[in-house]
């Protein structure tokens, strides 16, 4: 890449670069525990990106994404625990297997109207914990399966200690594994969206009949979207097991699927940065509302107590409703309109930029 292209890159790319560097350097300055929390936020971002591909880009509303995470998590855990496969190897395996299941799932899903698809996937999400508990021999039933968290490999650990002066913990290593997966998968998603598959999916989302009439392979792309979405969910689930150290039926209740949807919507559907913003919001809101908020002296005690006790559910619900009514394009949408508004003001918008046609000097 020559210097010319670097200088010509739009400001967005610089922002992405900054964020990536920040995320790479982050664990060196925060505690190991915080690193594990941020790892989980990144994992959620991967899952939400998968959901975003399905809902935001191809317009199919699935409320059962948690089920894909569960599948990926259990595949990894079972392979590692029963068959002694190296955990890091199980991640792509779990992803691909879940992706295949998702693709197959997408075939009957083609016949369902959007409302019915939402209904069926919602039912799936509710039933998932029961379905997991049953084959207890394989899944460990209610107890679940424990996941051994690996130590960081020697080389990486040495680099880390040289920079920070402390030994690298498992949690920090897991953070970097998650970050690596997130960067790769976000990059893949960005490419998919930019090129033909993305355009096809958006055409389908905006009008299936018109898309089909324009020669888009509607069935193919819709099932592809399901498969991709499930792949991301499977990888996220697998990483999730790694990060928490175990998998159990109770880790994947219907509220997880809701949390993922909240993250996707709040972050901003049909955008690449959206899932990251949404994941940070969805993951940290419950934690901060019960910890950070009550400790702030400038928030009146009454409000703080209510926020703390009411719990994340009320906040999620209210925010979801408010966002859908006032800002259906989520945080990224708000940021974009805010940015373009600012841009126009700062540059002194002329008539041409606000979309008015200038008077044509040739007409009489």
């Amino acid at each position, binding site marked *: 890449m020559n210097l010319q292209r670097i200088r010509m890159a739009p400001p967005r790319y610089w922002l992405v670069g900054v964020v990536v560097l920040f995320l790479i350097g982050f664990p060196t300055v925060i505690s190991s525990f915080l690193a594990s929390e941020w790892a989980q936020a990144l994992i959620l971002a991967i899952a939400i990106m998968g959901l975003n591909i399905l*809902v935001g880009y191809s*317009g199919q*509303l699935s*409320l059962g994404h948690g089920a894909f995470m569960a599948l990926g998590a259990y595949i990894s855990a079972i392979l590692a625990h029963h068959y002694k496969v190296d955990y890091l190897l199980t991640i792509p395996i779990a992803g691909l297997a879940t992706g295949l299941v998702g693709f197959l799932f997408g075939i*009957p899903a083609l*016949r*369902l*109207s*959007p*409302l*019915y698809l*939402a*209904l*069926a996937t*919602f*039912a*799936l999400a*509710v*039933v998932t914990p*029961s*379905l997991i*508990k*049953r084959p207890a021999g394989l899944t460990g039933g209610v107890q679940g399966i424990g996941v051994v968290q690996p130590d960081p490999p020697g080389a990486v650990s040495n680099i880390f200690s040289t920079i920070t002066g402390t030994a690298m913990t498992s949690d920090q290593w897991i953070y970097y594994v998650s970050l690596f997966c997130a960067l790769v998968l976000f990059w893949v998603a960005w490419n998919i969206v930019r090129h033909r598959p993305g355009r096809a999916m958006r055409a389908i989302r905006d009008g299936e009949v018109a898309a089909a009439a324009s020669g888009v392979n509607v069935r193919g792309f819709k099932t592809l979207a399901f498969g991709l979405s499930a792949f991301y969910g499977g990888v996220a689930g697998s990483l999730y097991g790694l990060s928490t150290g175990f998998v159990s039926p109770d880790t994947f209740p*219907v*509220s997880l699927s*809701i949390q993922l*949807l*909240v993250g996707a*919507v709040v972050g901003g559907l049909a955008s690449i940065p959206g899932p990251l913003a949404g994941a940070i919001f969805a993951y940290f809101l419950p934690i901060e509302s019960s910890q950070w908020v009550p400790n702030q002296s400038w928030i009146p005690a009454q409000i703080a107590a209510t926020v703390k*006790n*009411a*719990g*994340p*559910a*009320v*906040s*999620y*619900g*209210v*925010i*979801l*409703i408010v966002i*859908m*009514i006032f800002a*259906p394009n989520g945080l990224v949408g708000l940021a974009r309109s805010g940015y373009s508004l600012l841009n126009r003001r700062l540059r002194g918008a002329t008539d041409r930029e606000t979309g008015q046609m200038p008077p044509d000097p040739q007409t009489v």
Partner: protein
Amino acid sequence: MQEFLQQLVGGLAIGGIFASLALALVLIYNAMGLVNFAQGEMAMLATFVAYALVSQGMSYWIAFPVTLVLAFAGGIGVQRLVIKPVERAPILTLVIITLGLATLVNGLAGFIWGYVPRSFPSPFSSDSVDLVGVFVSYRDLGVIAVSGIVLLAVYLLLQRTTVGLTLRAAAHHPEASRLLGVHVSWMLALGWGLASAVGAVSGIMVAPILLLEPNMMQSIIIYAFAAAVLGGIESPPGAVVGGLIVGVTINLAGAYLPFVGGDLQLAVGLAIIIGVLILKPNGLFGRAAVRRV
């Protein structure tokens, strides 16, 4: 044989509960083409309200209608505050809003009453009565009776009164109804109120069985979805028939299919949903898409 009949009656009783919630779903679907994912949680909240009234000393048979009235008002409130502002939004936006509502109501109930299950009174004794040689519990008969009365009342309201007529007209033909002087917007609110009241009945009937707690209706709503889809999402009689069929099916499946047991009954509900949507998406009584004028 005895046991089979008992399970059958039990299935009809739980089926009546499913039918009430399914009817609520169908009423709103008919009015707006939307499945209200929050219907179960709204019913749960109404049941908690009933609980609060009874705990304050109100007699059950007074608290019951009072709760229905409050649920009715609540339904209207939800429509006015949350749904009306986004009336013209795409369906998926509305679905997500109802999900937000469900989450909110669930959290609210948890916040006010906590998550410890409470026992909820039933006005029917748990004794059994000998009915043509079969022992059936008063409780099951009572639930069947109450559900039956409520469903009949809704039927009469919709089919035999002017209000019901304008409700139906506004739901299926909003533009034409406006030209006939019908306040379509109010009718929509009324539809939500009615649905909320009918849904509340299912909550009150099921609470003595399941114990009252915020997550009580999460499985019931799945069965109600199955019932509505089975009967045909646009068909009120379909919701009732669907409810009874689903109730009897899961009861018998739980009793006679060894691998199903108690916890996989819900999977049977899921199987019904998926099966119907794949094999006969319009359900038993539904028709192909209706054009609304």
